[in-house]
């Protein structure tokens, strides 16, 4: 494939994520979306690069910060907006909301709002794939903070022991809410993973979708051969941890921390391509929001269904 075309494809997906989230920011004061949102603005390239390297039937298990993965894995925009709006037309009839997006038909499994809790799910799915002799892989997506939880340790050990096809993907934005990584971690993630016999790699260029895609493909060649892999990608969270605002004025971090990221951000730099692609994406988003707007609210008949 033409590498230029590939770049456009990735760029278009990343821009979609960015524009969707910017639309969310605009909409938020209207109270159409009445649930916490954890924006991935600044981190889009990770979801885009990784998902482009995956097959549709490869599974991604993600977190409350998963608008990016939802879109990059191919989830439907109207269903996403309807879900955020708390409508019956949403992926999960509004029961999930932003924190629990999923799109199993394209391989995005349930996102969890308990940090690190979906990491072993990816390992379990990979275990099944292995037993069935399938070539599918599972990807555990998590933040840098998640690796502090004990279950990360248990998951690495088990995955390495059982040699299951799982990719551990760490989105390292250096923050857990407002805490910096050095205040939370005494270990280096790669060295740590390697002591489990797990190959590991860090990519500092978390803005570079093509590099992320290639790093993922490289990692997947190991994973499909039945060996887990830890891929850590540095990235930058532009917005506050939860909510639609900036948070530099709170003084716990500097805007300059993020300026370095913005200076490399293709969605900011490549204005021409943005201008070219934006109108169509905007129309898609408008249609999605329109769908959400007209989808009914779930009613009492939905309250007690799908429990067991």
């Amino acid at each position, binding site marked *: 494939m033409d590498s230029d075309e590939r770049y456009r494809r990735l760029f278009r997906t990343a821009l979609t994520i960015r524009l969707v989230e910017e639309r969310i920011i605009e909409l938020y004061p209207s109270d159409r979306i009445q649930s916490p949102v954890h924006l991935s603005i600044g981190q889009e390239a990770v979801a885009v690069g990784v998902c482009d390297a995956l097959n549709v039937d490869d*599974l991604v*298990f993600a977190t409350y910060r998963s608008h990016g993965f939802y879109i990059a894995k191919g989830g439907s925009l109207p269903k996403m907006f309807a879900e955020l709006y708390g409508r019956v037309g*949403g*992926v*999960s*009839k*509004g*029961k*999930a909301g932003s924190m*629990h997006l*999923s799109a*199993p038909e394209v391989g995005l*499994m*349930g996102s*969890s709002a*308990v940090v690190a*809790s*979906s*990491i*072993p*799910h*990816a*390992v*379990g*799915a*990979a*275990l*099944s*794939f292995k*037993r069935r002799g399938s070539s599918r892989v*599972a990807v555990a997506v998590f933040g840098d903070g998640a690796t502090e939880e*004990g*279950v990360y340790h*248990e*998951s690495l*050990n*088990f995955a390495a*022991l059982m040699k299951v096809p799982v990719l551990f993907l760490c989105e390292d934005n250096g923050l857990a809410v407002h805490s910096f990584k050095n205040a939370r971690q005494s270990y280096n993630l790669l060295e740590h993973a390697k002591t489990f016999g797990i190959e590991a790699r860090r990519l500092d260029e978390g803005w570079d979708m093509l590099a992320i895609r290639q790093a993922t493909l490289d990692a997947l060649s190991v994973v499909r051969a039945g060996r887990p892999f830890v891929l850590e990608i540095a990235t930058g969270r532009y917005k506050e941890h939860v909510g639609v605002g900036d948070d530099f004025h709170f003084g716990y971090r500097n805007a300059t921390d993020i300026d370095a990221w913005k200076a490399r951000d293709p969605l900011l730099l490549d204005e021409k391509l943005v201008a070219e692609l934006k109108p169509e994406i905007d129309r898609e988003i408008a249609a999605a929001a329109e769908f959400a707007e007209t989808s009914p609210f779930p009613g009492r008949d939905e309250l007690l*269904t*799908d*429990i*067991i």
Partner: protein
Amino acid sequence: MNVSSKERPSTQTRVLSYAGALLETMDSALADHPNVFIMGQGVDDFKGIFGSTTGLAQKYGAQRVFDVPLMEEGMTGVAIGAALVGDYPITTHIRADFSFLAMNQIVNLASKYRYMFGGIMSCPMLIRLVVGRSWGQGAQHSQSPQATFAHYPGLTVVMPSTSQAIVDMYPQIIVRHPGPVVSIEHRLLYNLDFSVSAGTPAKPIPLTSYVAREGRDVTVVATSVMVLEALRAAQYVAEKAGIEVEVIDLNSISHPDWELVIGSIRKTGRLVIADTSWLEYGVAGEVCRQVMMRDPAMLRQAPAMLGMAAAPCPTAKSLEDIYYPSQHETVEAILTQVCGSRHGIELPVERSMTEGYKRFRGPF
């Protein structure tokens, strides 16, 4: 010990220990369903979770039955992930107390998966917990967390009290039940022999409550090994005083058949609740709530309640013996309900319930 259970419609019976029943159902689950697998600490060793998985790793291979590291939270998460892609995992905890290490995966994830995602995904799986008791299990190997798990919607919590319950219920659960099931098995039951119907019973034990013994004078609602205690006591008071006790095995803690329970209480007007855990915020409370919601006047008098003393479990046998309700107390509770506290009927002398279980050589 020799207790009579509910008469089974099928004429043919055979003798099967609780552990044997577990092994049979585990075996046939593996044989019948290629997507079933069993994982847990020691499931593949020669002790095989007290005989309930012995030999299965050899028979079905290490891909179907395997040991895991010490990782309760991780293992449960792995099970959820496997279930989400169509496997049916069975996990084990040799003591229910260790399931607290997996509480997050069980309560925050497994129990909510289906609802949280609007019904588009689910994680059916079986989580087997063994409750320890006797021989100085102490505070950390003796807990029976049915009320804890049953509080959370989305979980199905059962407490099979006999081999028949295992043989009847587990096939209904494994692969067939849509959601996660926590089954709380009692260690004291494992070595007991029970008579089970030889073929498929006409009325298999359902995933809800059932009448374990019919009676007209007083209703005993019991769980797990306390069902056996209730049956022993029922036999005793029948022989000694001609009192007919109706014993209801609550059996499903999350989904009891409350109409059955209430029907019995309405009939007898008297109630004893016998549970394996603490009374405070436990099964007894929920039974009382169900009665009160319908009609507080249903009962002629305050019910009796039997459970663990309101303390962590002590190790010393002299304390353990009084920590759990004995036959003495169970019979006393029943007699007091029916005849008042000055019933004057001789009580059994058995000091420790576990003695009964040790002496027991079955079958019956």
